[in-house]
């Protein structure tokens, strides 16, 4: 038997096939993660016509250009506030931000923690490839200690962010971390993230053979995936602060946080516009706000790994 030649792929209806092949290097994990995202969308029956993808700048930032849905490729670091504005204006649409670690956590770091704090009802897929790929492999806020990049040629002396931990404590409703090897679990996780009302965040560790792997003994994309296979420990609902990633040591992947659903930022913004809300007294309005506030003590229990049950 031989491989059967095909012209179309099962995910083609979600893709701007006229733009394929995409710009990503051979073996880059972004395409894999994008595939997982589209399968998750398909699985939960999310209508692509009612779905928006917003990206920032960088390799992952190009994702918005390949999906057959309304998509925005914005400025460096600003995908989140663009998406927050869009979602607030159009809460009827599903809004996903699909971008990279540098875009979301270096130049855009302030925006993502605020979007999580507000519990904006958007899904953020953050591909963490430990470097700036598009500009040639420079130091990122996620580059592991000792990591060699073009701007840390002697080894990285900085400590990287623990993205999942950071976003969990900032106030997100759903937080998970997977790798580009854990495709099935990633897909399941993305299904949950997309369905979750509130700020949902999925970090995906991924390989950048060209810009990062090449300088860090993982020249072949397979090398990075083998690394993930060796060191990733699947654990659900651990304390997100235990999610620190150190070179050549086991690191946690899994679902860090799945908080009970609460009114989202947009729910509250739109409530303000209702006549019945505006015409109540200030005391009654305060009461409504308190009633619909985030259950921070529950969130804090979940975050501390003690579970969310009463």
């Amino acid at each position, binding site marked *: 038997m031989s491989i*059967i030649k095909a012209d179309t792929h099962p*995910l083609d209806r979600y893709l701007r096939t006229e733009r394929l092949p995409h710009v990503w290097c051979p073996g*880059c994990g972004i*395409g894999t993660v994008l595939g*997982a995202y589209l399968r998750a969308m398909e699985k939960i029956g999310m209508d692509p016509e009612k779905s928006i993808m917003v990206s920032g700048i960088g390799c992952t930032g190009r994702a918005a250009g390949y999906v057959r849905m309304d998509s925005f490729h914005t400025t460096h670091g600003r995908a989140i506030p663009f998406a927050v504005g869009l979602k607030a204006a159009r809460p009827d649409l599903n809004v996903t931000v699909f971008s990279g670690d540098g875009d979301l956590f270096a130049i855009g770091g302030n925006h993502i923690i605020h979007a999580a704090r507000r519990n904006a009802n958007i899904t953020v897929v953050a591909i963490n490839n430990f470097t700036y790929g598009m500009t040639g492999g420079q130091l990122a806020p996620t580059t592991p200690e000792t990591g060699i990049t073009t701007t840390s040629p002697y080894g990285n002396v900085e400590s990287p962010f623990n993205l999942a931990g950071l976003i969990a404590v900032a106030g997100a409703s759903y937080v998970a971390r997977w790798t580009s090897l854990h495709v099935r679990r990633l897909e399941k996780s993305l299904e949950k993230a997309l369905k979750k009302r509130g700020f949902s965040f999925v970090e995906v560790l991924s390989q950048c053979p060209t810009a990062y792997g090449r300088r860090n003994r993982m020249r072949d994309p*397979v090398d990075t*995936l083998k690394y993930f296979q060796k060191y990733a420990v699947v654990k659900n609902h651990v304390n997100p602060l235990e999610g620190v990633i150190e070179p050549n040591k086991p690191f946690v992947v899994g679902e860090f946080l799945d908080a009970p659903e609460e009114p989202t930022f947009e729910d509250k913004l739109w409530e303000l516009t209702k006549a019945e809300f505006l015409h109540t007294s200030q005391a009654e309005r305060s009461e409504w706000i308190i009633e619909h506030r985030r259950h921070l003590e529950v969130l804090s229990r979940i975050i501390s790994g003690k579970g969310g049950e009463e």
Partner: protein
Amino acid sequence: MATESNTEKLLERSGLSLPRGEVYLIEDRCKGCGLCIAFCPKHVLVVSDKFNKKGYHPPELVEEEPVNVCINCGFCERICPEFAIFVKEKKEE
């Protein structure tokens, strides 16, 4: 991946037959990264000698019964960053 081989063992023990798959490839989307080959749990794929339009070596199938047969697990389809390879369940003739 570990999950797949466990499933396989379980199925074997229970006497059920594994599903069989057919592998499809959009050859010119392939960038020859080798992820499908490296991570196919049944090792049914190898690098081919031929070049596609972009000069990459796409994978080819080496089905050698009874070990190296496609079980329609879909991992190659999922790991492929290029939307190039996919599998379909093989219907029994």
